[in-house]
């Protein structure tokens, strides 16, 4: 499950950033990929829709998904949410 979640998340972020999925480094902040706060909101929506989950996010703080978090941390959060959903 996890590999496909990871591939989907990275490809959706890459699509929003006009990059190749291989260029999405897990230690990069959204800003370093050229994703400003509103672009990141859009990326999160496409991820939500792909997995039918709700990702808590707040652009101001490090709560939930946010621009202060690197891609790896966001990925871990999404994997956890997808995992919870699978258990239900």
């Amino acid at each position, binding site marked *: 499950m996890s590999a496909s979640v990871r591939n989907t998340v990275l490809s959706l972020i890459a699509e929003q950033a006009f990059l190749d999925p291989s260029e999405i480094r897990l230690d990069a902040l959204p800003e370093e990929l050229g994703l400003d706060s509103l672009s990141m909101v859009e990326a999160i929506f496409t991820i*939500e829709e792909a997995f039918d989950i709700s990702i808590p996010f707040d652009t101001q703080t490090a709560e939930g998904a946010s621009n202060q978090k690197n891609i790896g941390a966001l990925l871990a959060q999404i994997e956890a949410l997808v995992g919870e959903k699978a258990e239900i």
Partner: protein
Amino acid sequence: MAYTIREIADALGAEASGDQEFQIRRPSEPSRAGAEDLALAMDPSYGPALAQGQARAAVLWDGADWQSLGLTAAIFVSRPRFAMSHITNFFAVPPDMPVGIHPTAIIGPDAEIAEGASIGAYCVIGAGVRIGPNARIGSQVTIAEQTSIGADCLLYSGVRIGSFVTIGDRFAAHFNAVIGSDGFSYVTPEKSAVEDARATLGKAVEFRDQTWHRIASVASVVIGDDVEIGANSSIDKGTVASTRIGSGTKLDNQCQIGHNVVTGRDCLICGHTGVAGSAVLGDRVVLGGQSGVADHVTLGSDVIAGGASAILSNVPGGRVVMGYPAVKMDQNIENYKMVRRLPRLVRKVAELEEAVKNLSGKS
């Protein structure tokens, strides 16, 4: 024309290292820079691009190791965007407007044009117009009667300025800007359907046979110092009090400022924005591109509106707004989040409905 690194650093008020007498001809993007160019690489992220180009001199970020970048000379800046203002103005070529009044220009009676003016071909300057020193006025500009403009104005071709307009110093207007057109103001003999619609928020509108009667613009436009108006933008005259644009305010291209509007100082009004009649803007208000401000609305100082915001009600000072209707930016994103999640919510409710139905024995 070549410039030394020392000249440019002095103009920028910046520190330089390396060969101060090294000469460059023009600014350039780092990756495309030739040996006579000044590469603009003011952020560490431009380091690799610098290596792709041939630049021997560059403007760099504070503390950059210029020698390891293989440069002969470097200038250091701490705020790249602000440095861009100095750098671009240093290299900007002023428009070709020689001092003198072109023989085809028509100057009205009692017009006073101060020394140092350049007035281009086929300009028409109305009666009693006063223009301050060192005016640069391109071709085919018209300035109607009794208008006054301060020192050092720069009016590009096709600018039209109406009558009785008052403009401060260092005014700039780009091609085909219009200042002082009549306000868009009409009234019906009896109460109009629009007034009903507004008072009842669309609930009780009585349609009547009605014609529109013009409310004339008796006042004009008053513009402060250091104002800049973009191409094809227009500012209407006021009805009984003048439309006012505060000092330092800049308008982008194709903006519309309605009659009686008052803007404060240092506002920034981006392209395709419309400000409807009698709206009041405080100081330093920024309206993103394609924004709209409804008539008779007040925006406090330091309001920032994101692109395409439609501001329909008053906004207190210091607030950042966005959307239609414009609300606080974080609220707008929250609303958008809800809208985006709505289809999934609907599906979920349908599933729950089904589950409840099954629980209650398909009643």
